[in-house]
């Protein structure tokens, strides 16, 4: 049982690490700020989410698990809103209606 959980945990964390890799590559290689914003949100939401899922398989207590999920939700919220705020600045004419 614990072997299965460990394998699942390793898989999820590896996938999360891959998304961080992808996000960083996008941040470095994409040509303009809005593309890079796109890369950034992928890394934020999916990479951290997969890492959190991987760690949930090993969570010692419900409170720790709750904190992990809370961290993820907070980052989701920050990512979703802040990227929008930043996109307003990145595009001088403002968003298209």
């Amino acid at each position, binding site marked *: 049982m614990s072997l299965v959980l460990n394998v699942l945990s390793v898989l999820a964390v590896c996938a999360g690490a891959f998304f961080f890799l992808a996000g960083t590559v996008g941040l470095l290689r994409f040509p303009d700020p809005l593309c890079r914003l796109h890369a950034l949100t992928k890394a934020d939401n999916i990479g951290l989410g997969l890492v959190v899922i991987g760690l949930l398989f090993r969570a010692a207590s419900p409170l720790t698990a709750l904190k992990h999920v*809370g961290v993820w939700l*907070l980052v989701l*919220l*920050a990512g979703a*809103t*802040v990227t*929008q*705020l930043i996109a*307003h600045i990145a595009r001088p004419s403002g968003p298209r209606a």
Partner: protein
Amino acid sequence: MSFDIGLTLLVLAVAAWTIAARETFVAVVGFVAYGLLLAFVWVRLAAPDVALTEAALGSGLTGGLLIGASSRLRRSQSPAAEEAPGVVLKAAAAVLSILVSAGLAAIVLLLPDPAPTLAPQAAASIAATGLGNPVTAVLMAYRAIDTLLEIVVLLLALVGIWSLAPDRDWGRRLDRRGSTDPVSVLTFVAQLLVPVGIIVGIHIFWVGSVAPGGEFQGATILATMWTLASMAGLVSAAAVTRRWLRLVLTIGPAVFLAIGLAGFALAGAFLAYPKSHAKLMILVIEIPVTLSIAATLALLVAGPPERARQ
């Protein structure tokens, strides 16, 4: 070990770049990243309480303060004020800095080997207070006078900032980053984050008696939430002459001092707690102290009262 070496190199690279960056804004962003990395270092150094403080201050209030300052300075910077230093001065500064670094590194190498430690005394004060977190025990019992004086220093810094206000602006509302921003996403994020943040702040404060956390960390989070709410225009800024504001600012040190003086009667020394009620009295001190620190930190970021800029 290789993790630590990599982290050290990363910290040093970010620090070097904070110094070397040409634009002030870049240096400020670098400094925020530096604070984040330092939180890592504190975790690695088995100092989670410090890591919490560094994370709360370094990635929150300090970043906000410096970014605000750099964006205001950019608009009013006269180019004449930026004469670059000569080569000789740079070389001399480099030599001096290298000497200081080498001296400190030598001291690190020469530290006495069975390292002197006050941990046993701190452990004794834990036993006397019934607290579970050694750092909180040190802050509130073993070296409580340092903590009391520190809170007074915070208030003095605030008085210093307020004294910078021109006479004509005194008593006006603090010009917080006003709600001129029409982008309602800001209001949304503040409305969601502030309640969560208050809960997290109270949680960090509350676990401080048994686990890493405590009044400074909790207060910093509360202050950040207050600042966030006022940046989004959710709460209107208060005039610094308001009586309730002054009361919140001073109630912490006042209660601390009162209980400290009561220690003469109850336990025979300044800031000594009677054995049976130590934990309760520490809690009675900590709650108002947390409120006062939070209010002071938020007002420190807000700066002196000034006219609304139209």
